[in-house]
Structures are given as structure tokens and as C-alpha cells.
């Protein structure tokens, strides 16, 4: 299992064979985003839609003077759209090539330190949409955690 983890290219394996993830929930799924990739976590208070943009782009918002593009993880994962609009929705702030993005999720959980030994590559029968943004799966107790490759998620939405 360790070998698999090392194969995935930009995985940083810590000395202790563990990595830290922030867990987020989208639909029924629990997802993990590398701690180092997250700049901040915030709740949407105001969102300006961008007419004509791809459907996963929820809009743009002002985060402390920066314009942040909000990308809805629900849409990327092919889940049904949000019914109550975007106000109050939690977002994970990430950066990519100097641009700020917010990935909209349903809720943000905790920080988990996960052992590399619990890591597994994407099952081959996984949905292509999911596979395209997943780094792999951690086997947690009673549930599975999919790790999100933020870069892929953003690039895909480009």
C-alpha cells in the first residue's frame, strides 16, 4: 500500500508515514483535502454569479479584498444542485497559479492524520467524474475518504 502512495506523484509522505487532511462533506461522501493546500475556510455571505460561465462556477466573491472564484464541488461530482442558494455555504479556500479559488462544500469537518497504510488507489469501477479529481481512497473505520486533488479539480474546471 505504501508503494502505491509513493507512486502518486505529488504526495508528500511525512516521516511518520502519515498525512494530514481536512475532511469536508459533499452529499453523503466524506472527502479529504491536504492541509497544506488549504489557505482558509470560510462561509459564503455574498456571491456574484457569472452569467455564461460553466455550471460548476458558482460565482465570484470578495474575500478580504481579493476576488475569489467559487467552484461548486457538488456540480463537479455530479450531485443534485443546492436548493437554497449559496448564502451560508462553506468553502475551502485554495490557490492555484496565483489565483484564489473557493471550493464549495456542504460542510467542513475536522483535521485527520491518516496513515499511508490505509491509502488505496481509486477503484477502477469508480465514476469517471470522481476519478478525475481523486488522488485515492483512505479506508477509515466504517467509511471511505476520497482525497481530492485540488490541482486536478481546478484544472478540470478550466
Amino acid at each position, binding site marked *: 500500500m505504501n508503494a502505491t502512495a509513493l507512486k502518486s506523484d505529488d504526495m508528500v509522505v511525512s516521516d511518520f508515514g502519515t498525512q494530514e487532511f481536512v475532511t469536508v462533506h459533499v452529499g453523503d461522501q466524506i472527502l479529504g483535502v491536504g492541509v497544506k493546500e488549504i489557505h482558509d475556510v470560510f462561509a459564503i455571505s455574498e456571491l*456574484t454569479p*457569472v452569467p455564461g460561465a460553466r455550471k460548476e462556477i458558482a460565482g465570484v466573491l470578495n474575500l478580504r*479584498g481579493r476576488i475569489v*472564484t467559487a467552484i461548486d464541488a457538488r456540480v463537479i461530482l455530479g450531485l443534485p444542485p443546492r436548493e437554497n442558494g449559496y448564502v451560508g455555504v462553506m468553502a475551502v479556500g485554495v490557490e492555484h497559479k496565483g489565483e484564489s479559488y473557493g471550493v464549495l462544500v456542504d460542510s467542513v469537518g475536522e483535521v485527520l492524520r491518516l496513515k499511508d497504510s490505509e491509502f488505496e488507489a481509486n477503484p477502477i469501477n469508480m465514476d469517471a467524474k470522481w476519478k478525475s479529481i481523486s488522488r485515492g481512497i483512505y479506508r477509515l473505520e466504517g467509511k471511505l475518504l476520497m482525497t481530492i486533488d485540488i490541482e486536478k479539480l481546478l484544472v478540470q474546471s478550466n
Partner: protein
Amino acid sequence: MDELLAEFLTETNEFLETVDTQLVQFESDPTDSETLNNIFRLVHTIKGTCGFLGLPRLQFVAHAGETLLGKFRDGTIEATPDSVQLVLESIDRIKEILADLETTGQEPEGDDSALIGALERAAEGKTEAKPVEAKVEVKAEPEPAAPDNADAIPVDENGNKWDKDLGRFLKPGEVSLAELEAAFMAADVEEISPKSEAVEAPAPVPRNPEDRRGGTERRTTARDEDDDAASKAGGVSAQTIRVNVDVLENLMTMVSELVLTRNQLMQMVRNNSNSEFKAPLQRLSSVTGELQDSVMKTRMQPVGSAWKKLPRIVRDAARDLGKKIDLVLEGEATELDRQVLELIKDPLTHMIRNSCDHAIEKPADRAAAGKNETGTIKLNAYHEGGHIVIELSDDGAGLNTARIRDKAIKNGLVTEEQAWTMPDAQIHRFIFAPGFSTAQVVTNLSGRGVGMDVVRTNIKLIGGEVDLQSNEGKGTKFFIKIPLTLAIVSALVVGAKGQRFAIPQLSVVELVSAGGSSEHKVETLNKARVLRLRDRLLPLMSLSGALCIEGAEDDIKDNNSTQFVVVMQQAGIMFGIVVDEVFDTEEIVVKPLSSAVSGVKAFSGATILGDGSVIMIIDPQSIARAVGETEEHTSEEADSRQKSVKQEAKKDDIESLIIFRAGGEEPKAVPLGVVTRLEDLDVSTFEQSDGKTLVQYRGSLMPIVPADPYTNIKTSGNQPILVFTHNEHAIGLAVDEILDIVEEKLDIEMATDKGGMLGVAVIKGRATEILDVGYHLSNAITDWDKPIKKEEPKNIVLVERNPFFRNLLSPLLKAAGYNVEAVDTVSAALVCAEYQKPTAILADIDEDRNSALRLLDDERTAGAPVVALSGSSEADAQEFAALVRKSDRYGLISTIEYATKKGLAA
């Protein structure tokens, strides 16, 4: 070493630009020793620095160039264009090497012996073996770098020799590299040690330029008086420092943020009238404003810095083409944003090249045309409003209108009919059309062509405009109008479907309201909406439709309620964008879109408003495109890609038209319906009075006006006349010949700005001008009528509750010769009417129709006709004598006249 090299590159590039300009200047006036000294100094400095850095190729080339310059300087060789060319070539070679050096950090391999040979031969033109002599002076090189102790020695050693022949400048240059190298390695330690320090140790390195300058100055005092300029230059440069552009950009961003934050704070405090923050915030605000101004200034550069290369370009082009061209630069000190400057450099260079290539004729042709053999290209920059205008003019051949027209027709840019009725200026603008940019065209077309569309596109990108004026045979003038800065723009904030958007103010022409009680009506052609605005049809599109916001279909309401139309102009197209709300204009800081949304072409960026919300900035170009697309889809006839296209009649409207000729061969037409009679009158019955031609016609005087203002009325024989009557006045329109009466669909295709013409329509296969009868009538009749009007003072009572309209209408009526009593209520009007005995009463019926009705029955009005005033021409006014729209200036007077006459007749 890297740092040293980088500094060397920056500095040398700057020097070289100056050298280019100065050499061209020198060539035109070889007696100008001041300029030559400057050039000499610059080349020398470059060479000197190369020596320190161990760049042999550069050093040899610079050295050979300098040798030749030295000969110019002491007058042993005359500066001919050929020899100056050689120097310029050596400068070019230096630039090439520098470019490689910049990318690789290494001097590229190459052989400069041919160039150096040529330079040396030129330098040897008259003199003996100077270069040989120079070899003696090896040790002069370290001199500038070793001011502390090495200074005196070389001077003493070698000074006498050069002073006689060349002065000091040549001496450090005559070094063969091998010897120099050898000297560094082996020669006496005293001299060399400070030198090698300079190369190796980082600390003394930054001092190098200073040292050199210092060296120059020292030597100046010792030997060379005309070098004073150098020390002065040194003094000036001490007051400026080089700052990395990134630092400035960053500063700019931060200040923009600060401005936004300030705006937010201001908004918060504004809502809270007695806040203790008010005073400090006021201070913060003004400081921020000043800071913003200062930072903006750091980004400003004189436009002349983008022009530095131009003299050289013009010179080279002139030389290659065998032409004589002078380049005159004016307004070089005009400052504009660095970013803008970068962006206009290329288009400008391109245009200058074009001017040299195509506009300026060969000397022989110029002489034949009676012009000075030397053509002049003039570049002028000046501020105008928030813009910079750059004028590029030449006294060349001008554009060949006929060829451009043919080409435009051939390329399908216009129909033949359109092309022939277009003003020349409009035809000239076709050179900006994309199809005009192939090389083939340029050779065929003695006008400009290559890439003018690219030029225009580039200028448009930065919110600029380009236009031209051309006189065949006399020259062409281009106007480039560009905004001062791109960082902060003024924008109009509008709302559509509950969302706010910013439209750059630059592309907004005006705001009008349409529908509802407004005078502008939205009309429909198939599915395309148009707005009738000052006798023009304006294609309309809703903002939500253009942006494809969901549920936007058929967003433009049909005149039931008032809506706002933002009239915009982009790429020569005028169009209206219907918005739901108009908020305010704001100064906004444009922020780029992230790559995830940059694919949305409708927006050029986003901005944060004072209240902290993000709004999208609309890209006018893409909106123009969206409007254009719908037009093409919905109806062919709404083919208003040319904004002048105009449509008055519906497709199947057949009109009887009378076709005639007046002033010129091309047919003219008026609708038969408006012509009362056709007459053929003997001109001997015509009488002249008050500068007008009159004829007694059916018991009254009828003015005769020529249908074409440039044609005179006949002086003998019979004159065909079209008689029109209007309000019992008749006027005669003198024409050359009545041709025909036809039944045709009247499809006015081209609107014109020419007074007295509605436009041009195709009738019986010929482009025919349609006369505006109303124009001629009003001209003839108001003039004609005035003297009579004065005789009886006429009183008018104006009842209008709205002070705005009261103030608007009163002067109009007074100007037309009425005594006006403007009141705000019907009761007041009745009192006035009682003693004024007005000829007519004007009453507003929009506000209070029922009180206005009282006027009709009250005997105090003494039966004076009551004319209803309304904002809409469809208001219910059947009880009243007439109805007139408040904004209809012309109709107002004529309606009153009409009502008065009707009243008298009754």
C-alpha cells in the same frame, strides 16, 4: 557577476536607444559637435564596460565604431550617410549580441571581422595607422575603474600622444583583447588590482557606473571642456533611481486596495451621520487620494520614451526606399501610463513604417507634384480630457479613395450603391477592415494597408480609438486616442435581473429612457427590437439577453413601461442595451478574472464596489458582437452592420414616388403624396426679395428654393417646380428636370447626415436620394413667416405643473414670438386668460387631465383653443384642439399655429 551583467544590460540598452536617436540627428547635421560628443561618450562607455566584463565581441565592435566616431569628431573624416550607416550597423550588432547575452548570459559565438574591417577601412579613409598607435594605450582601460590610484599614471604615460590627435576618447578603445587580457594578468600589480577587484568582488561592482562617470568628470576638468554635459547628466541621474517594475505594479495594486477599503469605510460612515470616525476618515480619504495620484505618477512615462526608436526606423526606411523623410516629434513630454505606452509602441511603429513605405512619395514624384522633395512625418501627442491623443500626419500622397472603394466593394464590405454614396472619410476607414491587410493589396493600393486592422485592434484593446483624415495628394493624418491609464476606469453600474454589472464609461454614449411615457418608442422588426432615437434606428438588446442570463427571453417590454437604454458605441456600431436599473458611475479598479472564468467573453474583468460586493465588468466588444449576431439571425434587412443603415418603411409598403433630377445626374425622389402640384413656371415671373426668390402663385407669394442647395435657380426659360403646401403656405422646390413617377417599395437604406435628405433608396435599380420635404418646408417657411409674426403680439398661457417643463417650454415659445404667461395651475391660468386674451392655451394633461378639461368650458378663456401637452404622442386628447408632445420643439410651434388658425376659422 550576474548582478553586474544585469545592470550592464539595462544600462547599455538605454544608452543604445539614445545613440540611435542621436546618430540620426547627427547625420542630418554633421556639424553638430554637441551631438557627436554625446554619441561618442555613450559608445565609449559601452566599450569601457565591456572591457571590465570580459565581453570581447562587444568590445571589438564598440571599439571599431568608436574609432570611426573619433574621426568624425576631430574632423579627419566627414560623416557621410554611408559611414553613419556603418556606425549604425555596429550599434545593431551590439544590440544583437546584447540580446543573446540577456537570454543566455554568455556572449554568443560569431564573427564580426567583416563589420570591424569595414569600420576600420572607413576610419582609415584618410589617416594613417591609427589603430596601431592605439595599441600603445592598453593601460588606459583600467583608468576609469581605478580612480583612486591608477588615474594619474596612464594619463601621464600616454596623454600627450592622443591629445594631439584624437583626445582621450580613443585611447582606451584601441585595445586588442589579447593584450588587454595579458595586461590584466601580468602587468604591474598596482594598476591591475583595483580592476580585478571590480570584476570579482560584489561590493565595488555597483559602483562601476559611478566610477566611470566619475572618471569622465575628472578627465573633463583635466582636459576636455566640452565634456561638461557629461557631468551635468551625472548630476541629473543622481536624483532618480531605478525601481523594478514589479515593485511599482505591486504598489499600484496595494493602493487600489486601499482606495477600495477607503470607499467601503466612507460608505459605512455616510450612513451614520454623527460618527466620531468622520474627521479621521476624511483625512484618510484625502491622503489616500494623494497617495493614489503619486503612485499613478510613478507609472507615468513620457510618450517620447516609446518614440526613441522611431527616428532610426524612419531613417532606415528612407534609406532603403530611396526617399527623403523628415520625422518631426512633438509633445514628447506628454505622459501616460507605462502599461499603455508598452501597448501602443508596436502599433505606432507599424504606422510609421506604413507612412514611410506607402504615404511618402519618391523624391522625383514629390518634385513633380510640386512638393518639397523631403517628405515630413509628424508625430504629436497631447492631452485631451482623460485621454492622450497621438496624431501621426504625413504630407504624402494621401489615400486613394477610388482604389479603396473598389477594393471594399470587391471584398464585399459594402454594396456598390452604398459605396458610391458614402462620404470619402467613411471609405477611407475601410483600410482598418480586416480584409485590407494582404500584401497584395498594399502594392496595388497606393494607400496604407498592411495590418491596419491589427493596429486598430491593438488600440481598441486598451480602450482607444483610431481615426484618420486624408486628402488625396496632400497627406494623411491619423488620430489615436487612448486612455491615460488602464488601472482605474470609470464605469456605469447597471442592473439586470437583479444583478449588477459595470459598463466601462468609455463606450457609453448616452442613457435614454424608452417606452412608457417616454418619447422614444421600442419598435420591432421581425424579432429584432429597435429604438427610434433622433431619426436613427438603434438596434436594441437586453443586457440579460446579451449575457444569456436565464429567463431573459423577450426581456424588452413593449412600451408599456419605461425602461433604460444604455446607448453604446463599439467598433463603429451604435447599439442600445436595455437594462433594468441604472445605479451610478463609479471609479473602479479592474481586476483580472481567474482562468476558470476568463473563458466567458462577455466580461473583461471584475471589481469590488464600495459596499464590498463583487461585480462583473462587461466587455463592450463582446456585447457588440452579441447584438450583431442576433441581428443577422433575426432579419436580413436589419443589416445594420453599418450604423447608417436605416429603415423607415415596412417591407410591403408601396409608395408612389416622383423622381427628378436636381444638381447632378443622380436621381432624387420625394413621395408623391406630399407634392401638391407640379408646375413649370416662367422664370421671368420670379421676383427677388430679401435675398429670396419668390413668385406670385395663386394670389399669394410662394418662395422658390432649389432642391439642391448648390444649384442655382434657372435664370431663363421655364423652371420645373414641385409645389408643396404646409399650413396653407406653399413653397416651390426648383428642380432641373422631372423624370418619372414610379410605384416602388420605399426602403431607405442609407441614412445621411446631409441636411434636406432622408437617405438613399434603390429605386428602379438606381441609388436615389430621398428628399426630406419637411426640412425644406421648415427652412423656407419659418424664414418667410417671421416678419409677419411680429405684427400682432400673441399671448399664450402655459399651464404646466412641472417647473422643468415650464422653464423648458417658455423660452421656446418666446423665441417663436409669443408672449408667454407660464403658470402652474389651471385656476391661475384662467385668471391670466381673463385679462390676457391669449391666442392659445397650452395645458399639460399628464398630471391632471380633469382640471385641464375645465379650461375648455370656462368662458374666461374666450374660446381660445386649448392645446394639450403630453409626454406621449398617444395620449387621449380628443377634447382638445390639438395634442403636442412636450419634447417636440418644432411640432410645438406649428401645432399652436395650427390650433390657432383652426380656432379662428371656427
